[in-house]
Every structure is written in C-alpha cells, then in structure tokens.
C-alpha cells in the first residue's frame, strides 16, 4: 500500500513533467499532440549519447554522484538532452505543424502528430535498435525505509523526485515572474489581443516548444533511470500523459502537475486490485471517470 503510493508519486513526477509541455501546446495551438510523448524518447536517447560522449572525453565525469547510480556525466547529459529535445520540438513545429496550422485545419494537425510520432519512434528504433538499454549496468539496491509496512526506495528515486520538483519550481518562477510568463498567459487567453500588445506570437510558440521539449527530455531521462530506455517509451506513455493533462484541465500548468501525480498514484494503486496486465488500460479509465464527473478537468475552463 505505502509502497504503491511511493511508486505512484515517482511515476507521477515523471508524468507531470511530460504533461506540462503537452498542456501548454494543446492550449495555445489547440490540438491534441500525439507525438509529445515521443519527445521523452528523444530526450532519453540523446542523454544516452551525450553520456557516452562525456564519459569518453572526461573519464572523471564517469564517477558516481553520492549514493546514486547516475554519474556527473549523466547529469550534464540530461541538461544537453533537454536542449536538444527542446530544439527538435521547435524544429518539428517549424517544418510540420506550423505549415499545417497555416492551412488552418486543427484535425489535420492531430493526424500529422500521429505521423510524426510514428516517424520519430521508428527512426529511434532504427538508429538505436529495438532492444532495451540502460544508463548504467550497475545494480543499485533499494534501501529499506521501513519493514512494517514494507517500503523499499532506491536512492535514484529520491533524486528523480527532488530533481523533478526543482524543475517544476523553476518553471513556476519563470511563468509567474518573467515577462515571458506574462506573454505566455496573454497568448493563451487571446492570441490576437496579445499580438496587438506587441507580443511576437511566433516567438512565444517557439519558446513553448523549447520548454515543453526540455521538460519532456528530463522526464524521459528520469523514466530511463527508473525503468529502461527503448523506442516504445512514447507509445507506452502517450495515454498516461494525456490522462494527466485532461485531469488537470487543458491549459493549466499547475493542473498538469497535479494531474500527473493523480494519474501516477491512481495507476499504481489500481494494480493492488487489478491484475498487472491491465495497467495500460488504467489511464483511459481515469480519463473516462473524469470526463463524466468534471469534463473540463480540475483546473481547466470550459472551451468550445
């Protein structure tokens, strides 16, 4: 029970990071982006590449950080991966979504995102192989926090949770204290009015992709640390991330954070009663329940 709660919180932190970017994109560009979860894969794999690169160039970086299985190189790699992923998200928008957007059909965008997801997933599979990989082959044993009730936690999990919370806190300050944050809110509320006030729409959109991609990359690396990295991360996470976004209400960053934790914990708890084979279906059930009870999410506003 407690163990499920702890696992759920950790998964929730990862889903939150993914959902923040998705909710911003869905709100500002008004389309359900089925390729968002693939950004997590891009992040996870580019961190893998940078990690090999950094530990090759500067072996001292390959030392472990404290009790964690991750190395300094991996932390550095994660930051680079966030940049690379943010940039790829922006480029994908520029070359695909922006041009379809200009033709003016929202549902074509949804379909294009299906196509983009399919391309990213399979290109990653082609480059890195279909087998699962790990950042580190060392086995890190879980620490028994308490025996009654049983609670096992790996040091990495604590790190991931704290790092995720730190990133969200930084985002909170960016959104609430900077002119970019105000511009973002203005665009979300009324794009034309924002443009009249001198906000460059294209710049805000590009920044939203960069931030969304960066957060997704962090989520991807954290997911890779706790599970393993394979080309179908995106396929496995697309529905949970959508669920987190819908639970929080489309457009609400804080809702997405809360939604991520709710979905993570609920999915983990559900396995106490359901056979584990059914876990991929749990996020969908959460979506259904929410749409019945509160169709626009916890913090969302009704939209037409």
């Amino acid at each position, binding site marked *: 029970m407690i163990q499920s709660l702890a696992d759920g919180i950790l998964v929730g932190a990862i889903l939150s990071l993914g959902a923040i970017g998705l909710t911003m994109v869905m709100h500002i560009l008004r389309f359900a982006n089925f390729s968002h979860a693939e950004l997590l894969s891009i992040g996870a794999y580019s961190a893998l590449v940078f990690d090999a690169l950094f530990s090759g160039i500067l072996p001292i970086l390959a030392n472990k950080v404290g009790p964690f299985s991750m190395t300094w190189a991996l932390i550095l790699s994660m930051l680079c991966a966030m940049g690379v992923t943010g940039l790829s998200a922006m480029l994908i928008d520029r070359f695909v979504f922006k041009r*379809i957007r200009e033709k003016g059909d929202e549902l074509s965008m*949804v379909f294009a995102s299906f196509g983009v997801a399919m*391309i990213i997933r399979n290109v990653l599979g*082609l480059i890195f192989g279909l087998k699962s990989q790990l950042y580190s082959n060392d086995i890190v044993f879980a620490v028994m926090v308490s025996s009654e009730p049983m609670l096992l936690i790996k040091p990495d999990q604590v790190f991931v949770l704290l790092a995720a919370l730190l990133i969200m806190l930084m985002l909170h300050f960016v959104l609430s204290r900077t002119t970019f944050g105000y511009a973002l809110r203005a665009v979300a509320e009324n794009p034309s009015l924002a443009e009249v006030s001198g906000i460059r729409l294209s710049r805000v959109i590009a920044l939203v992709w960069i931030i969304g991609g960066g957060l997704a990359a962090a989520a991807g690396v954290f997911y890779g640390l706790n599970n393993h990295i394979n080309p179908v991360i995106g396929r496995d996470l697309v529905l949970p991330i959508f669920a987190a976004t819908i639970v929080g209400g*489309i457009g609400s960053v804080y809702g997405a954070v809360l939604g991520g934790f709710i979905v993570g914990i609920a999915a983990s708890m559900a396995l106490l009663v359901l056979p584990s084979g*059914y876990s991929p279906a749990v996020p969908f059930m959460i*979506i*259904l329940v929410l*749409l019945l009870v509160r169709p626009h999410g916890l913090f969302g506003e009704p939209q037409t």
Partner: protein
Amino acid sequence: MMGLISYLVFFITIASILAIAVLGLNLQWGNAGLFNGGVVAFFGAGAYGTLLLGGDPQSDHIGGFDLIYPLALLGGAVAAGVLAWVAGRLTLHLRHDYFAIATFGVAVTFENVMRNAEGLSGGAKGLRGFTRPLEAWVNNGFTYNMLFLLVVASLLVCTYLFLERLIRSPYGRLLRAIREDEIAACSLGKNPGRIRLTAFITGSCIVGLAGGLYATFYAFVSPQDVLPTLTFQLWAMLIVGGAGNNRGAIFGTFLIWGAWTASGWGLSRLAPVEVQLYTGTMQFILIGLVIVGMLLWRPQGLFPERLVVSQSGRKSK
C-alpha cells in the same frame, strides 16, 4: 503462374476488406468530421464478435455459439456499433481533441482487455476454433478463396453504393452542414450531437463488418491483429485517397496496401539479413513520411472531395 494468381486473389481480398473499413472511416471523418483515433477497436470488436458468435463451442472461454455465418457477421458489426454507442455517448459532446484522445484510449483498452481476459477472448494466444462457412462443401482451397473474394468484393460494392446514397441524402447534407458550421445547423433546429452519434455508430458498424470479414478469412484473430498501428494504416489510406471521397478511399486503400506489401517484399528480398529485422520499422517510417507529406503538400488527397453547391446557393453568387 498459379502461385501468382492465388497471391493476387489473397492481396485483393485483404485490400477489399480494408477498403470497407476505410469507407466506414470516411463516413466518420470525411463527412462528419469526427476524428476516430481508435478505428482498430471497432475493427477488433467486429472480428472478435464474429468469431465468438460463429465459432465452434469452446471449453476454455465463452463464445462458440455456432450461429449461422451471416448472423455471426452481423453480430460482429453490431458489437462494433454498441462499442461506438457507448464511447460516443461518453465523449462526443466534448471538444474534438478529447474525442480523438478518448477513442485512442478505447483502442488501447480494447487491445489490453483482449490480451488479458482469457475467458472472453482466448487471451494473447488468440481466438481459434472457427470453421469458415461452406469450406467443407467447397473442398478446394483456391476455389474457396475465389468465392470468398467474390463475397468480399460484392460487400465492398454494396457498402460503396450505400454510402454514396447516404451522403447524397438529406442526412448526408446534414452531416456536412454540421461539419462546416455547427451553430448554423443548430439554428435550423438540428441536433448535432445526435446526428454525429448516428454517423459515428454507422461508420463503426461498417468498420466492424470489415473486421468480421478479416477474422473470417484467417479463421483466427489475436491481439496482434488489433494493434494501434492498424489505425494508423487505415488513416493513411484515407488521407492518401482523399477524405470525403468514397472512390478515393477505395483507391487509397489499394495503393497504400500495395505499397505496404511491395515494400515489405522488397526489403525482405533485397535488404541484408541484419537489416531485415527492421523491415516493419522502415515501413512505418515510410508510411509516416507519406502521411506527413500528404498533409503538407496535398491535404485534400489524390481524389479531393467534390463539394456540391446547391442550385439556390449558386444563383445567389
């Protein structure tokens, strides 16, 4: 030569079955503007429904009611329709992207349940124990496949004629009216929610019919047949052919299925052995590029929808 002909029969049979599914999808997307992100669930409902109703009695799971075949096939289509009714009631009144996500979720959940609920679907090993109708009577594989193709092709023609009539009827005009301007349709006293729901159910029944035929042809269905990638392939066929145009939908199906089969054959013949493991991967990249390319450069498809302007509308211009 005989091998080539029987392969051709096989190819046309599968392509025609898929074309029926794409026609059903075209009613939903091309005419009603509904983004069904989980086509495969309705295809699967038809497939599983048909095999469960028409199969031989089984000991380890329910089903095997041994109904006469047309009833079983109809039952499969109805099963898909019921699934669409439930999903549609829950989600159709919401924003269109919620609908896309929800139907995508339906498909993931459907596959998941079929994989795990062994008592219902036979689980991961799939559903066997189905005798194809009249197979013992025909008693010749090739003749049987020819006959089956004939049945499938005539069902394809029937579906095509039915849909052509439907979209030219007042109901079809209403669908397009709602797609173009929902509020205007409301102002004329129409109920968009209801009309959308009926279009969604009708389209899903047609997709379910295709699923039933597909399962009949193989006399087998397993969770491998209802992966989300099939949704993507069916979508590709519709987008390439031209959404809103039934002839385009059929043409697109044959074109994409042909390209899919040819690329698979080519890669397995010409590519080095170590690359062959990645045949599916490369095929999906190609099909993804086709989709994105079409949406970028020719979003209306190879056969665009012919928009009909009414006579009174033409006069006023």
